[in-house]
Structure formats: C-alpha cells, structure tokens
C-alpha cells in the first residue's frame, strides 16, 4: 500500500510538472506574439529609434523567440522569475505583495459564499418549489448573469456614497495607510498583530463590500450546485428510510445528506476558491484593490511578459494545489475511496 502511494505521488508530481511546463510555454509564446510592446512603454512615445533599439537589446527582445524562451527557462531553474518592467522589482517580490491582497479578499469571499450559499441551496432543495426555492433560484440567476462590474459600481453608489456603511476603494482609509508594518501582507491579520484596532476596523470597512460582491457571484454557483446535489440525494432510498424511521428533518439533512454531498461540494468550493484567487480583475479595478488581478492586467497592457508569465505560473500552481487538496479531502471524507486506496 505504501508503495502504491509513492507511485501515485510520483505520477502526480510528474503530471504537475508537465502541466506547468505546457502552461509556461503557451503563456510565453502568446505573450511574445502579442502586439503589446514593452519598449514603447519604457522609453516613451517620442524616443528616437536608437533609444528603442538599445532598450530592446537590454530586455533581450532582439533575440529569436526560442533563445528568449531558453534563457527564461534557464533563469527559472535558478529560481529567478525575472524583473518586472512595470516596477523594476524582481517579479517574485511584486507577487508576494500583490498576492496577499487577493488572498485576503478571496478567502473572505469564499467563506461568505459558503456560509450563505450551502444552506440556501439545501433549503431550496428541501423546500422545493416554495417561496424560498424561488428566491434562491432568482438570486443565483441574477448573481450568475449580471456582471460583477455593475454590482461593484452600484454597491459603491449605495453602500459607500449613499449610506456610508462601508469604506470606499482601497484596502484602508487613506490617512491610515502605512501605519501597520506588513508581516503576513494580510491587512486584517497584520493590524490585529500590531494591536491597531483603528486600522483593523478601517480594513474591515473596506473589504466587506468587495468581498460580499465577489461572494455573491460565487454564491450563485455554489447555491445552484448544492441545490441539485441535495435534490439528487432526497430521492435516494436511504432518505426515505430515515424519514420512515421518524428521524427529524434537521437530523436527515445534517446527519445524512450533508456527508453524502460533501465530496462533490468540496470540488465546487475548491473551483470557486481557485477562480477567486486568480484575481477578480474587474472587482480589483473598481475597488482599487492592489491584488494579483490588477497587477497582471497592468503588466499585460504594456507587454511586461516576465510579470505575466510568472503570475500565470503562480496561479496555475495554486489551482493544481487546490485540486490536489480536494482529492485529498475525498479520501478523508469518502469511505469508498479510503478503502480502495
């Protein structure tokens, strides 16, 4: 059994490496073929051709594509993701400041969407075709079909400009910027570590609206999936049997249905979390949120390929790790897979 696990692990590791390599190649080629020109962004529109050419050489863009790729891979194997044109910093350093901002937002969003979406989906299935089901269906349809951009702006107009319930764009009130030294990069945690409650509440104030808006679109998906998983279970014999035995509704739902749909749910939640982590570009732009989505969009605009490729790799890696964790959760939650392995 031990042997089998090692083999399985090795197979997975190779799969992961191959996927990453394919991802890297595709991103690199697309990036270099794109018409975006980083040289123009750096030297300015009015620069003379000599300055253009000099910068092109400095960036190594005068080399043939395969040589550029080779050099990139070589540097990558030495742990060097290159320098971002946009910021002049090593890409890794940029990602390590941009990513926590996204992580904080996405984590809060996925928590909110799970806490609301799963019960709502189950309730919709249990009380099928009643008012609650209809509300759930309308909510998830709206969340699925209306662009996040619109929700963002309308949310700001109502809750920020109108009601003053929440803070505006940015992670914290401007006059509180820079008061807390970043340790984890997660402002909510850093401010608590520093014991600065003013910064903490300001950060809560600022994160709540974008997190709720992101959570709403994720919730739409989670609710729909939970509803259909639950419906499937409700028709199963074991539910009928439990009812016949006189088990209470809550006992059936929590004790029997939930464990049975848990595996499928975990996959859905992992996918939602993954796509939130890749940076909700639009939300980040509307809310001036300095996360990975905004960072990569700006990099893409000027053709800053070091930043784009490295960002893509990190996101790819996160997806794969989440997938792996979801698989691991199956084994823990589903007795059949546990016994099979």
């Amino acid at each position, binding site marked *: 059994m031990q042997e089998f696990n090692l083999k399985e692990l090795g197979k997975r590791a190779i799969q992961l490496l191959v996927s990453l390599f394919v991802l890297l190649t595709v991103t690199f080629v697309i990036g270099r073929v794109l018409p975006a020109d980083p040289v123009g962004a750096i030297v300015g529109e009015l620069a003379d051709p000599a300055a253009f050419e000099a910068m092109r050489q400095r960036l190594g863009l005068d080399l043939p594509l395969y040589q550029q790729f080779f050099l990139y891979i070589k540097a990558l194997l030495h742990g060097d993701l290159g320098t971002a*044109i*946009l910021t002049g910093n090593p890409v890794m350093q940029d990602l390590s400041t941009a990513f926590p901002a996204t992580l904080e937002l996405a984590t809060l969003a996925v928590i909110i969407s799970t806490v609301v979406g799963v019960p709502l989906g189950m309730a919709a299935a249990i009380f099928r075709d009643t008012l609650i089901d209809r509300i759930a269906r309308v909510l998830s349809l709206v969340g699925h079909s209306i662009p996040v951009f619109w929700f963002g702006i309308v949310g700001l107009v109502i809750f920020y400009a109108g009601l003053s319930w929440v803070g505006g764009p940015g992670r914290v009130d401007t*006059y509180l910027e820079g008061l807390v030294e970043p340790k984890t990069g997660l402002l909510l945690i850093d401010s608590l570590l520093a014991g600065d409650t003013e910064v903490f509440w300001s950060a809560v104030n600022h994160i709540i609206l974008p997190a709720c808006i992101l959570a709403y679109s994720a919730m739409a998906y989670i609710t729909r999936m939970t509803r259909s998983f639950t419906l499937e279970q409700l028709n199963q014999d074991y539910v009928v049997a439990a009812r016949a035995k006189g088990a209470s509704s809550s006992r059936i739902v929590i004790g029997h249905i939930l464990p049975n749909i848990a595996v499928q749910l975990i996959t859905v939640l992992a996918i939602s979390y993954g796509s939130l982590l890749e940076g909700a570009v639009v939300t980040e732009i509307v809310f001036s949120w300095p996360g990975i989505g905004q960072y990569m969009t700006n990099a893409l605009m000027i053709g800053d390929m070091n930043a784009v490729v490295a960002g893509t790799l990190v996101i790819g890696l996160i997806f794969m790790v989440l997938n792996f964790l979801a698989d691991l959760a199956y084994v823990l939650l589903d007795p059949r897979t546990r016994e099979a392995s």
Partner: protein
Amino acid sequence: MKSFWKPIRLALAVSLMAAHVPAAIAATPNDQLVIGTSLVQVLSLDPQQGVDAKTIEILTNTYDRLVYTDNQNGNVIAPQLAEKWDVTEDSITFHLREAKFASGNPVTAKDVVFSLVRLMKLDQASAANFKTAGYSAANIESMVSAPDDRTFRIQFPKTVTPDALLYRMSMGVASVVDSVEVQKHVNNGDYGNEWLRTNTAGSGPFTLRRWTPNDLVMLEANKDYWQGVPTLRRVIMRHVPESQAARLMLERGDIDIANALSASDIGYFQNKDGFVIDRVQTGGFYVLSMNAGRKELADPLVRKAIANSIDYAGIEKTIVGAYGRARNVPVPVDWAGAIKNPDWGFHPEEAKKMLAEAGYPNGFDLTLKVVSQAPRVDMATAIQANLAEVGIRVTIQQGNGADIVAAHRARDFDLLIPQTSAYMPTALGALDNFAYNPDNSAEAKNAGNFVWRSAWDIPEISKLRDEANAERDATRRQALVTEIQEKFIAAGPAVLPMFERFEPIALNKRVIGYSGHPMGMTRVNKITKSDAQ
C-alpha cells in the same frame, strides 16, 4: 417552516451588524492631500529617467531644480535652487542658494554637475531635450563645471538660446540629486539608477515615504525645506483606475483631487456645489495627422480641403468641452508670439471646390486610426461625419495606445488623431512637434518626430525653426516665429492642429492654492485646506 426561518433571520441580523462597523470619516485630514489618479505609467522615480506626467508631478515635489517655470506669472523662468544667474556669450553661470538635501548633505554645484552628467550618461529617452540642444554623453563633462560649491556653469552648444536652455534646466530631468547619497548606491556603473528608481535623494519640499506600484505613492513633508516647512504633512497619490470610483471618492471627500476622470465624470462636477474644475493648459494639441505619403494627401489643396471640412466650433461645444479649445495654429492663442487663427471650419462648398480642383470631384476613401479613448474617439466620429459631407469616405479603426502609436511611428495610416504637448511653454516649444522635419526620407527613421511620421517634407520651415532656435535677439526671433506659423498655415499642414489640449482635473473646493502646471510640474507645498465645505 418556522424553525427554518429562525437561523436565517439570525444570520441576516448578524451580517447587518457586521456591515455596520464604524463608518469611514467623511473628509481627509486637513494636513494631508489625497490625489486620486492613475499610477499605471509610473515606472521609475529616477529623475533622470522618468518622463511620464504623473512621475513628473512626484519628482517636482521631491526634488528642486536650479530654476522653475512660474505658471502663475506668464510662464517666466524664476529662481529655485539658483538665486540668480548671469548669461554671457557662451555660457550661463548660476549662483546657488544655501540649501540642504533631505539627507542633510548641503546642495552644492558638484551635485548639479553630477545630475546633468548622469542624465546624459544614462542616455534614456529623458535625455532627448538636452540632446536636441546639442549636449551628449560624449561632450557633457566638458560643458558643465563647478568653479566652487556655490557656482555652477554650463556652456552653450551652438544651437540653443539662453531662454531655451533655462527652460530645459527647469524640467524634471534636470532635477538636482544628492550625489553623495546616490554614489553610495552605484551598482555596476548604473549611476545609482537601480536604487534611485524607487528612492528619492532630493532637496524638494517632500520626501518619498512609500511607493507601492499601482497602489499608492506617499510623500512626507521635508521639515528642513529651505523655503519653509510645507503646509501639508503628507501627500498621497492613490491609484484609482476606475473613473466612476474616483468620482464617488471625490464626492464623499475621501480624495481631494481627481486627475484621471473620464469626460462624463468631469461633466458631472462641472456645475456641482463644493467642487471646481481646473483646466490645466498643456500647450499641446489634439491633431489630425495626414499621411502625405498617400497620393491624395500629398496634395496641399486636398489637405486644405480637409482642414475646411471640419466643424471645430461644433466639436468643441459638443465633444471636446473641458478638454480643449478650437485652434489651427500650433501655438496656444494666449502665448506670446501666437498669430491669429485662419478662417478654417466647416465650409463644405469651398472644400468640395478645392477637391474638384485637385482632381477628386467624387472624393475618395481613407481610414482614420484613433486610440479608443475619450475625447478622441468621439472626435473621430464627428470628423468622419464632416468629411462625408464633402465626399471623403472615412473608415474609423480604433486601437489601444500601443497599436496606434506603433502605426503612427511606422507611417502606417491615412489619417490619425494623436495628441502633442509642448516641451517648453513658449511658441517655439509648442511649434516643435509641427514645424520641424530635417530629413523626410524613409531611411532617416526619425520616428520620434510627428512631421516625419506624416511624411511631410518642409525643408524651408525646418530651416526657419533652426534659425529661430539659435536666434538670441528677441525681436528677430519673434519675426521668425511669426513667419514659421504663417508658412505652416499656407502649406496646408499635414499635421493639422484642431484643438488646444487642456487636462481637466476636479478638485474639492476645500483645496486652496492648487495651480495645475502646463508641464505637469505642479508644486503642492503651499496648498492649504479650508474647513468650510
């Protein structure tokens, strides 16, 4: 059913409570200025490298130059680090005041020498204006000197007048850096570029406290500033890429100034209580570039016909608004030496006659390339409609900035709408993008030059421009400047100015003393904020 609703009610109550945490303070503190802007183009804070407008605004406040352009006083050159200067036949000698860098080191003439040598040796696009004046990486060390700590001397190359050199000395690229501090951070002969990209070493009223790319720039008052302690403790430039979000923040008082608003959001603040729109004159223009390499457009008569088919006044009123003012002479109407505008406008009958005379009674087809950005896209649509009236059928091709600029540089267009800016606030500074093309051949590859991009060969005007730039006698220079403008109009310009370009910014009325600078060099050390809202 009842038991089901209970937890939902509870959850709702809890989430409402969570949402209602202490509300944000409505106004920014009085000792801080918060500017909502776009920081996408801020790539380097090295004064001898950064050229983007927002970068210049930061450098203006973190560094001093020897002189500055006083935009509140007719754009004259005024003293900054230099108390006074003497102009002789072959050089300018600056006498420096006593001042200190933020590091505590004294500002000396050696620092000025170091900064200018650094500019030319780094040899980036930022050095362009000093190159056109005749300085180079090879000659700079022989052109600048520091006879003593308080005296700095710079020699003239042949082709530049004292005025034009003084204006160059007021630019962001001529900022004086702390040579002692920078030399501590030199790496592989990079003149400290790596370090200075993300740090400041100046003597300006503010120092850089923090810069997070695409997030925020935080400047802190330099308490030892030689002009006195700045009134503001802190200046924050916050990246707010979405115009509507910036509008809400300005309205709510979370930012004091918004300088990257869309046309519709500018319109929103135009007549709103508590806010003012400041139209910052740039000295540049919105231009209709015509490719004189195309058969039809090579004919001056056709170009004049086009110039006489556009409803400038109408477009100004309905589209350009706060962004500009109709004008076909490439010198802003209120700048010294500007001539009267020709009688161009929407004259379809005259234009048709000119086209017939040129051999195109039935018109022809053209494409018009434009950056998909207000107000230029809407200008393109209006021009398309105008030209249709005289038989010129225009297809509009939109693109992002990089695409359109690349097509412009490669002469790959029929019509294109670029925008210019003046490199110095004088008639000659404004004319530079319009009246100079020393070599029109394709081999010259002078892609930085707007006239070359239009393949418009103007040897006579170019010669006059050279003469004017080298002419030291103000009266004779003015005569040349007038002649250039007249010849430009008479030639039927392929680089046709349509509107003087303004950059509208929206300010909270509480902000007192903000005066947008035409070269983007707005100082904020004397700004105050009133309590009255």
